[in-house]
């Protein structure tokens, strides 16, 4: 493999990882702080993408659509938290699974009823379409560079938020010790609603950043939801740092798995066997990674709870 | 002096830079009631966790009945006759008192990999369980769900559960914690009644109870055993007084 291709694949891995991070960050916060398994996280992502796409079309501006869509999704997320999810925090994980599974059904079907079955148009703003010459021999799509930038910016912002602000202190306390957070006096319900709003906003941001790359259609949430969960679990539930590292690890493993396993196996095995085994192995590399991580570290890489 | 039943040799556990137990060497003789005392943060909980098999020590070893059990899991220790009661009540809340006991008895009477015969038909399990309940004075509440018991009764049940596994040694983790004076008195009498029949390792804050019950006392301070001896010897020990008892008396 040539050096430019290798470099490009590294960028691909980074970008795919950061794309997952956008979703996993909100998921891990909600998971860690409220101890809520929110299967409907993917539905918020779908809703975010739909809203951004519709609003971008209505306003004629991607940026405006993005801003409005993120705000609207955050508001919907908070409303959902107050109306439904708040009642689930003190329930066991099973009730949460059932309730949020039900929310997936409702969200998918409602979206279909409102927007129809046809996928929505959400394309890259003209200024960002096409690719950029990075350095000798490497051109890279401008929009993917934007995803990398947004991913890093979100990571930094969350790091700052969690490590430096009072909200972050409460969040950290909540993730590592709920009782402690409870007695710290601040209205914990408000904190939870706020965190959920942030999580939903991040979902919409992810939807907006991924919409131009992926089909904006009903069911888009479940596809990526599992990957986001895998990320969160590898990283350690409740840990933003874990989600970041986990997402990058998945991005790299998946990318290099797809790029190298099939060709690599062809060099090792007979072509007939390699052609069957290669793509299959590449498809499950992420799950193998997760099983490996959990085998050695049953609490993920950065367990938030002691 | 009689045979040593439980011994730790230079047990050490660190959390990052913090040394929780530092070279703890302790010997519990068969048949004695050995008390372990120490102020908060002395490393008692960490030591107990290592003894019970919940934490793996960084260095040192644990020996029980002549066997090195350092790497043994909690259930293997229990099977060897090393029982514990929990400081924070740890029972099966959805079971009745009798069922709790029966489950404890079941662990030492034959294989539990039996899938067909109903437990409720195994009268001998329940007879033995009632016997133990009588011995700790809980026979009146046998059919109540554990969740409905008072705190003192929980502590008694904790003890009963440990007894039901036919232990050689009982590790009692603060059996008097959080109960009133009257119940406390009953618990002391109960433990006094166990003396001689079981080897007891008593971890307790209640100094009065400790000095009434213990044959020997070890004092843990900052992760080290600073003294071991009879109650009288410990009372007389200057270092212990300075570090620990003085502080207690002032309080």
């Amino acid at each position, binding site marked *: 493999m040539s050096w430019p291709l290798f470099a490009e694949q590294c960028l691909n891995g980074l970008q795919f990882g950061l794309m997952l991070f956008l979703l996993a960050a909100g998921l891990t916060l909600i998971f860690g702080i409220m101890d809520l398994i929110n299967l409907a996280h993917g539905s918020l992502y779908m809703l975010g993408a739909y809203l951004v796409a519709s609003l971008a079309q209505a306003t004629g501006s991607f940026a405006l659509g993005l801003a409005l869509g993120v705000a609207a999704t955050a508001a919907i997320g908070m409303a959902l938290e107050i109306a439904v999810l708040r009642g689930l925090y003190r329930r066991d994980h*099973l009730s949460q*699974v059932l309730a949020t599974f*039900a929310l997936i059904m409702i969200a998918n079907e409602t979206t279909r009823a409102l927007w129809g079955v046809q996928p929505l148009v959400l394309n890259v703003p003209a200024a960002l379409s096409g690719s950029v010459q990075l350095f000798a021999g490497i051109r890279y799509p401008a929009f993917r560079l934007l995803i990398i930038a947004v991913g890093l910016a979100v990571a930094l912002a969350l790091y700052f938020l969690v490590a430096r602000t009072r909200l972050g202190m409460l969040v950290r306390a909540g993730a590592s010790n709920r009782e402690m957070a409870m007695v710290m006096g601040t209205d914990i319900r408000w904190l939870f609603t706020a965190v959920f709003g942030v999580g939903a906003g991040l979902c919409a941001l992810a939807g907006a950043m991924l919409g131009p790359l992926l089909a904006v259609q009903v069911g888009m949430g479940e596809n990526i939801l599992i990957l986001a969960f895998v990320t969160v679990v590898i990283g350690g539930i409740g840990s933003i740092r874990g989600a970041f590292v986990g997402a990058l690890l998945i991005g790299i493993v998946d990318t290099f798995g797809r790029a190298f396993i099939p060709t690599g196996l062809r060099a090792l095995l007979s072509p007939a066997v390699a052609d069957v085994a290669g793509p299959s192995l590449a*498809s499950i590399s992420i799950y193998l990674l997760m099983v490996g991580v959990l085998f050695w570290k049953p609490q993920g890489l950065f367990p938030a709870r002691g | 002096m009689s045979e040593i039943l439980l011994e730790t040799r230079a047990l050490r556990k660190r959390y990052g830079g913090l040394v929780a137990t530092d070279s703890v060497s302790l010997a519990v003789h068969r048949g004695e009631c050995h008390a372990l005392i120490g102020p908060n943060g002395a490393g008692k909980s960490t030591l107990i966790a290592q003894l019970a098999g919940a934490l793996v020590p960084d260095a040192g070893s644990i020996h029980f009945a002549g066997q090195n059990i350092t790497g043994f899991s909690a259930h293997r220790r229990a099977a060897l006759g090393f029982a514990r009661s929990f400081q924070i009540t740890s029972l099966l809340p*959805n079971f009745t008192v009798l069922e709790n006991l029966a489950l404890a008895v079941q662990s030492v009477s034959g294989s539990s*990999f039996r899938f067909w015969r109903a437990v*409720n038909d195994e009268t001998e399990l329940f007879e033995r369980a009632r016997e133990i309940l009588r011995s700790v004075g809980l026979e009146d509440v046998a059919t109540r769900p554990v969740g409905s018991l008072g705190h003192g009764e929980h502590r008694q049940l904790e003890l009963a559960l440990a007894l039901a596994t036919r232990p050689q040694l009982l590790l009692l983790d603060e059996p008097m914690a959080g109960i009133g004076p009257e119940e406390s008195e009953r618990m002391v009498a109960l433990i006094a009644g166990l003396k001689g029949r079981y080897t007891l390792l008593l971890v307790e804050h209640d100094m009065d109870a400790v000095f009434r019950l213990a044959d020997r006392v070890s004092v843990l301070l900052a992760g080290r055993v600073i003294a071991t001896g009879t109650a009288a010897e410990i009372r007389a020990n200057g270092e212990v007084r300075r570090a620990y008892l003085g502080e207690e008396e002032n309080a």
Partner: protein
Amino acid sequence: MNHLRRHGWLLATLAVALSLPQLAALCGQDFYVSFASRLLIWALLASSLNLLVGMGGMVSLGHAAYFGAGAYVVGILSVEAPGWSSALLVWPLAVALSALLAVVIGAVCLRTRGVYFIMITLAFAQMLFYIFTSLTPYGGDDGLSLAKRLTLPGLAMAGDATFYYVVLAIFAACLTALGRLQASRFGRVLAGIKDNEERMESLGYATFRFKLVAYIIAGALAGLAGALMANQNAFVSPNMMSWNESGIALVMVILGGLGSLWGGLAGAAAFLVLEEVLTGFTTHWQIVLGLILLAVVFFAPRGIAGLFAKQP
């Protein structure tokens, strides 16, 4: 009195179950016989998951892996060994291989707990799903069609009514066995582990072994359900192991009643009948079903079985 009422319910259920094919034939609605078979197979799957989740406290989101594995044993054997047409040979094999798979996967998964357990079981099921999706010799994503149902001596298995009775008998046997298990020493230990695993350890129980055995039994029963489903549909496909199917099985368990012996049956029946009824009314039936499930979470947290149980 209570005793009598319980037996009354049991007898009534049994009477309806036994006479269902005749009733259906009387109405000229043979279709509902195969619907009932399908329902019982789902009930078996849900009951096996209930052993894991309801009795043992191990929440698995990958249980469909064994459902699919059992089905694929039937499917693959129909390709590789078409001569092995006896269910007496193939079904036990499906059970055994599913159990074997559960040994391997369970040994790894049970190192983790809680949410991590949920996710690692999901990961294994996803791996199997992708492997079978790409397994060209056995149809991959298209699945495998079976030429005909397996045979049992003296029974015409092609007939839907006969097959229904076979499924009914197997389900009744499994439910009886699960009932015995629940009340047995093993069942008690499992319930104790669900309540307080650390305490059970300190009482001398090797909890890992008990959980693993429960996991294997659950996997084996799910494999049996899969083998039956393969015969019911004359078709197997990787879709049977998708996470959505695992999720539905879990929904059935919660809907029916966690840890309740009849929970699996009640949940499967409620879910499938709801689906059957709702799809007739609107294409957006999933909204209605979702709302019903939400209502169950908030207003009937102990599921259908909880509605029938005595108020505490």
